[in-house]
């Protein structure tokens, strides 16, 4: 009797995979090849690497917020963990010899710290740095989740909670006593895994890694979202209490998605730091966390593509505007946020959907259906 039921989901899938393939072709293959051939400058490639890394960050945010409806204002903390992890490793790789013969970063010497603090030592090994960049945020998120999700802390209160944690972490990281570089952060990276960071080949390789990992993250996120787990997450967003009466232990799902989003954020940080060359406390805190929210909402939350679009477009716009209108850019950008959201509350993706509808394509219940319910739901 299945034939009597109308299948709503089937055609969308093929279209989406094509999009992913297209995205991969352009960004993982196309751009770096163009760079190798000289059509795209190293500068632009590096800039795009930054955008793509931030897109991974946005993806995690979309999972926890766009799909599950949990507003986390602490994603920047996880990002920072990833960035600082690899940053510490790179600093150790490129710093001089200290008193005890082991490399000690310059900023510590300036602060009269001549011995490497114990928590820095494991970061000598790249494996530790990479693993901790991804696993440590996931662990931290799991702990927070265990402490809060089981007590059904939700809505604004989780947002405020994560905001408070972000604020506290930011305050601490700024202190010199934490031996993380204080307000100046970690910078002056010379090489990674033995490859010089000033060589265009290394940067290109890092770019490709970033783009490839973004595609990977996208595929994983899609897999989650398209499975029954994704359905449950959306149900959590829409009516968690009702879901519990159906027999689901929502807490477990929330912890899962929170940990995944944290791991993605950590991965983003891991890729960001070597390519941008610096990580400071100003990227770890409440304000950067809010900016991530802006990217995802601007792009259109709950669609995954919206997160990518939002992250890349906002950051790209910002770069362009700061260059051309150094004095006016916040006004332009702020105005843009206001205009887009007022006119297209479902973000850029909603804009695209509406444009398509105008062009006369038949509404299959795909993106529009996804966009519509999102409108109904509160933050």
């Amino acid at each position, binding site marked *: *009797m299945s034939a*009597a039921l109308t299948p709503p989901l089937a055609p969308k899938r093929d279209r989406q995979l094509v999009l992913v393939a297209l995205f991969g072709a352009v960004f993982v293959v196309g751009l770096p090849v163009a760079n190798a051939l000289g059509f795209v400058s190293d500068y632009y490639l590096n800039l795009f690497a930054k955008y793509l890394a931030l897109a991974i960050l946005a993806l995690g945010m979309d999972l926890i917020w766009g799909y599950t409806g949990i507003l986390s204002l602490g994603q920047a903390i996880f990002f920072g963990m990833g960035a600082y992890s690899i940053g510490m490793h790179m600093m150790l790789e490129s710093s001089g010899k200290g008193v005890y013969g082991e490399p000690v970063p310059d900023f510590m010497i300036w602060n009269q710290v001549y011995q490497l603090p114990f928590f820095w030592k494991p970061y000598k090994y790249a494996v530790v740095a990479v693993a901790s960049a991804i696993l440590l945020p996931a662990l931290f998120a799991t702990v927070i989740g265990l402490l809060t999700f089981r007590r059904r802390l939700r809505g604004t209160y989780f947002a405020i909670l994560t905001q408070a944690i972000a604020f506290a972490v930011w305050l601490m990281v700024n202190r010199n006593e934490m031996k993380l570089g204080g307000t100046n952060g970690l910078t002056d990276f010379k090489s990674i895994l033995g490859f010089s960071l000033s060589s265009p080949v290394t940067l290109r390789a890092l770019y490709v890694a970033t783009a490839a990992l973004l595609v990977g993250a996208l595929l994983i996120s899609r897999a989650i979202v398209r499975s*029954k787990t994704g359905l449950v997450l959306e149900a959590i967003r*829409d009516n968690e209490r009702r879901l519990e009466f*159906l027999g689901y232990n*929502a807490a477990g799902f929330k912890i899962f998605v929170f940990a995944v989003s944290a791991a993605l954020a950590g991965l983003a940080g891991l890729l960001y730091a070597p390519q941008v060359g610096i990580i400071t406390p100003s990227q770890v805190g409440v304000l950067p966390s809010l900016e991530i929210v802006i990217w995802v909402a601007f792009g259109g939350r709950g669609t995954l593509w919206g997160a990518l679009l939002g992250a890349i477009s906002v950051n790209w716009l910002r770069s362009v505007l700061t260059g051309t209108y150094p004095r006016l850019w916040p006004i332009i950008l702020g105005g843009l946020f206001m205009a887009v959201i007022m006119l297209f509350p479902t973000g850029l993706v909603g804009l695209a959907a509406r444009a398509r509808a105008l062009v006369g394509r038949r509404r299959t219940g795909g993106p529009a259906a996804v966009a*519509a319910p999102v409108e109904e739901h509160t933050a």
Partner: protein
Amino acid sequence: MSSADTLLYVESLTVSFDGFLALRNLNLIIERDERVRLLIGPNGAGKTTLFDVLTGHVTPESGRVLFRDTVNLLGQAPHEIANVGVIRKFQTPSVFPGHTVFENMLLSAGRKRFASTLGAGRSFRGHDPIVATLEQVGLAGRAGDVAGALSHGEKQWLEIAMLLVQEPTLLLLDEPAAGMTRPEKERTVKVLEGIVARSSCSVMLIEHDMEFVRHIAGRGHKVTVLHEGTVLSEGSLERVQADERVVEAYLGRGKVRGAA
């Protein structure tokens, strides 16, 4: 009273909301073989509160609640109670309006543990129980429609379908006919009769609409009348309606529609 071999055993249940006693020393037993129990009473009698306690939404001051002799329902989380087989339907339809009928059903069906959801897909394959249940409530043709677009009555049936596909042992229906038109109510009665006939689950039903009640109770099902937090009278519908105390309680608050 002994709790042996009962489906639901409620003893001396007391619920207080800041001093106001919503339930006072309530005693109620549903036997294993009892298929339908009707719960009626004036507004504020405590009917919905009883359901709240049974599903873990409200914590009582005192009392015991045993399900199937052995399972203590008090102190368990709502999702655990649902997994034990006590399923509730709310007064207002609470489907997931942003998702399709099918997706609503998918959420309700199958295993609820995290690991099993990760592997399961959202598409259509192999979901005969869902299809069968949708047919039972007559919504098979609407599977692809967004639930928010259904009429009120259709939403109620969808919700019933969602409950059925969970294979409940005890179904708690809170005013299933509320807000329905006459034809819709008749269909609901048929759906309920179908449930009673085809599955082995028991149903406890809160209703205000006396005609609806009479249709169901006419099959010889027991009626419990709640008043001010405690059981006022219990028995067949005729007996209960003849009970002076019941008449007074209802008259005191207005005539019961359709009463003799």
